[in-house]
Every structure is written in structure tokens, then in C-alpha cells.
């Protein structure tokens, strides 16, 4: 695959970038529109800042544009986008210390729980997610935003499968405990055990 450039219509204008994927010429705009939600959501769920997430997503697409030669198929492109976004998010968080480290125990009490108050619970879950360490947070996001299984996550983040499973178990257990406390629900041990298989 290689990057192609359409003929320039005038000396001062630059043609719309197109890319060639598996012998099909595709407008780069279609590539962006097709995957912008995935890339942006990974970034915004991880960084919890829309502006920073959009900047990061833009950098990811520009890197894709520069590296189109190495992309072999549409599936490969999705894998590449997830991988590069994940790595950039983790690097960004470590570099800028976006997330002030606060343990679950230190996290402020979130909300007054009332049955059926879903948006508040959703916000609380997002808040708890932001308290996780960089690697654990990205693993949870890849698992529950993208629906990847632990094996795929391990390959994407270049880490052992056991480490991914361990992060998932610990993160879920902590979050379940905190949400259980906030909502006054008892923690269901059977439910916990059933999720270890993921």
C-alpha cells in the first residue's frame, strides 16, 4: 500500500489526500470519518479531557497518514489505530501526569445514589476509571469500549496474558466494591468469580 496524491488542480492548492488499501484507492477523509469515534473515544475515556483527546487523535491520524505504506488491510489499520492510540495515551499520561494519583480509598465520595439514577452512576464509574493506573485503565477501556478479549489486549500492549487478566480482575474488583458501597448494594462474590474468565 502506498500514499497517492491526486493531481493538483491549481498551483496553490493541494489535492485531497487519498490512500491505497489492498489495491483500493480510498479518500483519507473516509478513513478519518470511519474511525474517528474509536480513536477519539479511546483517548477521551483515558485522558478525560476532550481538547487533549482531540489533539492526540489528530496526531494518531497524521501518523497513520505518514505510515500508510505499512498498512496491509482494513483489519490491520484498525489494529494499528488501537495500538498507536493506546500507546500514545499511556505516554501522554505518564509525561504530563494528567492523572494525579489518588487511590480508591482517597477518592471523594461521588454522588447520592437513588435507584435508576443512571447518569450519575455512569459518571461515577467514569470517575473511578480515571483513578486506575495508566496500564490498568487502558486495559479496561480496550476490554469494555472495544470489546477486545484479554489475549488481543495482551498482544496490543505487548504484555503477558496473565498480567492483563490480573489487571482486569483487580480493577473490576476495586470498582465493584466502590460502586457497591456507593449504591448500598452487596457485593456478589459469584458475579465476581464469573468475570474472571474474561
Amino acid at each position: 500500500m502506498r500514499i497517492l496524491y491526486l493531481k493538483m488542480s491549481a498551483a496553490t492548492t493541494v489535492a485531497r489526500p487519498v490512500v491505497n488499501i489492498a489495491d483500493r484507492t480510498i479518500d483519507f477523509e473516509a478513513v478519518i470519518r470511519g474511525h474517528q469515534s474509536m480513536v477519539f473515544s479511546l483517548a477521551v475515556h483515558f485522558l478525560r479531557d476532550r481538547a487533549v483527546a482531540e489533539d492526540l487523535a489528530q496526531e494518531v491520524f497524521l501518523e497513520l497518514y505518514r505510515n500508510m505504506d505499512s498498512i496491509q488491510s482494513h483489519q490491520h489499520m484498525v489494529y494499528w489505530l488501537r495500538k498507536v492510540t493506546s500507546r500514545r495515551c499511556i505516554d501522554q499520561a505518564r509525561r504530563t501526569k494528567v492523572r494525579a494519583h489518588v487511590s480508591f480509598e482517597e477518592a471523594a465520595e461521588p454522588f447520592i445514589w437513588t435507584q435508576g439514577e443512571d447518569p450519575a452512576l455512569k459518571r461515577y464509574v467514569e470517575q473511578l476509571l480515571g483513578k486506575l493506573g495508566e496500564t490498568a485503565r487502558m486495559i479496561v477501556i480496550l476490554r469494555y469500549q472495544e470489546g477486545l478479549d484479554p489475549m488481543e489486549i495482551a498482544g496490543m500492549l505487548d504484555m503477558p496474558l496473565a498480567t492483563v487478566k490480573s489487571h482486569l480482575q483487580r480493577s473490576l474488583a476495586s470498582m465493584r466494591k466502590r460502586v457497591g458501597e456507593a449504591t448500598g448494594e452487596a457485593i456478589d462474590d459469584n458475579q465476581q468469580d464469573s468475570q474472571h474468565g474474561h
Partner: protein
Amino acid sequence: MDIERQLERALERKPPSPEFAARVLAAAQMQSRRRGVWSNWRQWIAAPLAASLLLLALGIEQRKERQEGEAAKAQLLQALALTSGKLEKIQELVREVQR
């Protein structure tokens, strides 16, 4: 409390701002333009550089040929001088015999 379901809800995909794609596209176009300018700049530098190198190589070759020619000319003159000296000696011998 099904924490996994709650996570799936909290982590639903969200669209970026409506102008995001246009902004990325503009940045990609700028990247292409920069790449194009760099490529043209290299072409402008490469062509005269190649011509200069060619002229230099031709000059060196011509100088080498001239030096070889001059050396051959010197050798020829030396050979002629030697031949001329020997001819004079032979003429002298012939003259002495005739006397």
C-alpha cells in the same frame, strides 16, 4: 450491580467535535504540501549538483588526456632526437668511408 454493564455504558464510543475530520484533513494536506516542497527543493538542488559533478568529471578526464598527450609528445620528441643523433653519426661514418 453488574459492573461490566456499567463499564460498557460508561465507555460507549463518543464522536469528536464536528470539525475534527476537516481539521485532520487540513493538517494531512499541509503535511503533503511540506513533503512536496521538500521534494521540489531536493529536485532543484539535485539537478545542478549532478550537472556540476558531471562537468567536474569531464574536466578531470580532459586534463588527464592532455597530460597523457603531452607525455607522449615528449617521448616522441626524445625518440626523434635520439634517431637524429644516430643518423648524424651514420652520415659521418659514411663520409669517412667515402674519403
